[in-house]
């Protein structure tokens, strides 16, 4: 090969090598940037997945929690219906007892005596509902009350009937002090206890 040939070949070889370096550098730097971007994208993708996992867990938990809550309410509602029914039946039974003079009289004596004892006065007014005022033998009632030990109490029966399904209100003569022993008051006062007792029997609570 001539000297000129060698020289031109050297020029072209050098140019080719440099061209290759330029391209290699571009490819290397591009690959490097691509790898970095890939890692960044992978982190982003992992975030998306992580959020997805959290959402999935929430979706499942929410679904189950809603069902549990709905059924808990349903159970409470069913129990409440039974309790309400039992309270209504109890009220009806107590009112039936009030209509049965044989059972009711002794009970009324107890209510009046208890009211007199609680009010602690020498003279009292006993208030009854209209049915009791008509049906109950007030003299007998007074006699039965007088059998209780302790000092003699002057008892006056009010002619004005009270509005109650049964029971009694014992008041002072001036009406300022009252002991309410009506069936309705007793029912109201005992309601929370009645619910607890009924719950124990019905549901073992």
């Amino acid at each position: 090969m001539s000297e000129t040939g060698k020289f031109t070949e050297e020029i072209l070889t050098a140019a080719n090598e440099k061209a290759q370096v330029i391209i290699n550098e571009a490819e290397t730097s591009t690959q490097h940037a691509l790898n970095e971007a890939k890692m960044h994208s992978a982190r982003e993708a992992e975030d998306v997945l992580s959020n997805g996992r959290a959402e999935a867990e929430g979706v499942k938990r929410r679904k189950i929690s809603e069902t549990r809550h709905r059924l808990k309410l349903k159970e409470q509602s069913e129990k409440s219906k039974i309790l309400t029914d039992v309270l209504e039946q109890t009220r009806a039974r107590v009112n039936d007892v009030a209509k049965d003079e044989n059972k009711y009289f002794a009970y009324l004596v107890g209510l009046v005596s208890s009211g007199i004892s609680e009010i602690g006065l020498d003279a009292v007014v006993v208030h009854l509902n209209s049915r009791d005022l008509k049906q109950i033998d007030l003299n007998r009632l007074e006699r039965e009350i007088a059998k209780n030990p302790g000092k003699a109490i002057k008892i006056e029966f009010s002619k004005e009937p009270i509005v109650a399904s049964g029971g009694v209100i014992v008041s002072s003569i001036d009406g300022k002090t009252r002991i309410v022993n009506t069936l309705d008051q007793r029912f109201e006062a005992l309601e929370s206890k009645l619910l607890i007792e009924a719950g124990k029997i019905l549901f073992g609570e």
Partner: protein
Amino acid sequence: MSGIETIKIIVDSEREAAKMLADADAKALEIRKRLDSLIQIQRNEALNAAKKEAAALVQKAENDGKAESLEYEKDAENRIRTVVSRASAKKGEAVEKLVALILGMKA
């Protein structure tokens, strides 16, 4: 070969060398230009795959939740039926107890 011919050959080869370098620069530029779109494509692929997987996870969780809820509901309905049935059978006993509580307290 004359001197002029020699110079011409050298000039031609240098021109060719310059063209090779210019082509290499152009190719390098082209490679770098493609980088943004390659990154974008790569990112979209990764995110789309992740979104798809996340959506599948949520869907599966929904299905699992439904199935578990149905199972729970079935058990709970049975339990409620039993509770109601047992309680209904004890209503009479409860009424007796409550009546005794009301009438027996001070009577």
